[in-house]
């Protein structure tokens, strides 16, 4: 009796928790994509990460910051130390003041964080038709639907439906809340030229950059899953052993 109830409760509870994610309220459901980092053992595809980083550098970084990521972390993408040094050196960063109190600029080092494209929010809004381009460090974790949503958004620029009037400078996007987005369609075929020769279609670029941003959101994911397998295996053995010990101990009572 109670076992059946238990099962029913767990089903109800599960449904309750799952249905708690109302992603379909106003935006149409975005297509569910397959990702290299999906599932229990999924890891970030290194080639996708590197291409995605290229898309971020050449396209997104003009407006969007990535403030929680430092250059040295790019090692996780499979870049060599020398390459990371070269990437960091391309940017100029602010580094305190000199002895006369004047601000010092120098070339970036691997320990530097990605610089923000705008000096402050006002400057960002002034340059972007009043909108503040969000930092992308947590964009995959911080949106309902995560990678599916961001990829759908990047590809979601379609014809404005008849009868809808957009405010000046705005674009129509199928998946953005309210459909009016200040970001113009950022991707077009062959916008970047991939170093590894992959054809830079919009879909490919969106997929790659979302994979890169997923890594930026959760750089610990691979280590986390790896450690999780070990710890859960240990706990399984521990639990089974405790089950056996328990049975043996309690058998004394029957005798």
């Amino acid at each position, binding site marked *: 009796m109670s076992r059946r109830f238990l099962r029913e409760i767990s089903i109800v509870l599960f449904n309750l928790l799952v249905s708690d994610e109302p992603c379909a309220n106003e935006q149409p459901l975005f297509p569910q994509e397959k990702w290299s980092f999906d599932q229990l053992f999924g890891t970030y595809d290194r080639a996708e990460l590197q291409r995605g980083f290229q898309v971020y550098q050449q396209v997104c970084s003009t407006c969007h910051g990535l403030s929680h990521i430092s250059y040295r972390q790019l090692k996780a993408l499979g870049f060599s130390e020398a390459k990371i040094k070269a990437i960091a050196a391309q940017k100029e960063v602010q580094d305190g003041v000199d002895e006369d109190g004047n601000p010092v600029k120098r070339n970036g080092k691997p320990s530097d964080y990605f610089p923000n494209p705008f000096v402050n929010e006002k400057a960002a809004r002034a340059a972007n038709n009043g909108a503040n381009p969000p930092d992308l460090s*947590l964009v995959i974790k911080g949106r309902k639907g995560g990678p599916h949503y961001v990829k759908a958004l990047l590809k979601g620029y379609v014809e404005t439906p008849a009868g809808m009037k957009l405010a000046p400078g705005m674009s129509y996007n199928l998946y953005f809340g309210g459909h009016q987005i200040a970001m113009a369609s950022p991707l077009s075929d062959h916008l970047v030229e991939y170093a590894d020769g992959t054809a830079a279609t919009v879909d490919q670029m969106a997929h790659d950059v979302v994979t890169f941003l997923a890594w930026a959101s959760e750089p610990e994911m691979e280590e986390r899953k790896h450690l999780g397998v070990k710890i859960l295996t240990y706990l399984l053995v521990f639990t089974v052993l405790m089950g056996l010990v*328990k049975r043996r*101990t309690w058998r*004394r009572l029957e005798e």
Partner: protein
Amino acid sequence: MTMPSSEKKKAGFVQWVDERLPVFSFINKELVDYPTPRNLSYWWNFGSLAGVVLVVMILTGIFLAMFYTPHVDHAFNSVERIMREVNYGWLIRYIHMNGASMFFVVVYIHMFRGLYYGSYKAPRELLWILGVVIFLLMMATAFMGYVLPWGQMSYWGATVITNLFSAIPLIGDSIVTWLWGGFSVANPTLNRFFALHYLFPFLIVGVVFLHLIALHQHGSNNPLGIDAKKPGDKIPFHPYYTVKDLLGLGVLLMVWGSFVFFAPNFFGEPDNYIPADPLVTPEHIVPEWYFLPFYAILRSVPDKLGGVVLMFSAVFILTLMPWLDRSPIRSARFRPLYKVLFWIFVATCLILGWVGSQKPEGLPLIFGRIATVYYFIHFLVFVPLLNRIERPLPLPESLQKKSVPSVKGGASS
């Protein structure tokens, strides 16, 4: 034939300490020999599990506090630094974050077990009330902890919940200003929430000790709800329940670990990974899942003050349970009607939880209102009146199916 000298020395040392400070005989009395009903089911595992979760929460919390900065300009980034730069910071934070959910899962099961088996009845009324006090402290702690990362949900959750106090007539607005330390949720609010979030768990530890003292006064209730009479009805806590609790702990840690390592943000809202912005209200402000039933009660009342009063009453009414339920029979096993009522009550709580996650309009609102009314009818009408019409099943003679000679702790087999 002779004890190794080191052991002899230790025994002598233990004895020396014990004569002056009886910690060892205390442990022996309360954790080793402590007589426990032999028929406890796995539903009795959840008390000790809650204790373990509390300890883990305090330990992980102390380490998080070493790296966290309670300032509106730095809180969000300091949490991200823990996630990205601190060695195993992500692990400690995810254990802590999911630990809050595990804590409530375990405690809710523990409370429902108490309701089903009448564990609140004489002579355990104060034990039960202390449990409700722990539950209240847990809710306050969890709420303030959720504010600390200073994401969008943190900020707006704090705004909504603290604003509830403005419903109090006359002094409501002053109370809210006093709670905030200003005229909106801002840096002073975050600072005091951090201070209190660090303090409250230790208050919980204190009340847990009182809870345990009250428990050990009369011992655990049991699935049959009758008192132990025969000598063999109770068995020593160690090894029987220590090993059973360890088995339960293994299962809990597996569930907890599954979330920590493979779905760490399952219970969270994505919006809380967006830094708090007082100028942008999230489309849908929802509290953490463990508050949803109470949130549903709050929103099902059209009047703000009424909603607040009802929401707090929903918790406080639990303290009256020992006096609302007049049946002398503890266990629902022998109360055919109460058993049905109990499961309807569980369903009501689950429905309220679902309603709390929905927008308060249309069908969810109607369901929420019906469930809210039923929640209180359950306590105020059905439970008190049940005793008049219910015919309990005959109670068994003893805790044991057949009479078994008494057992001495663990030695013989």
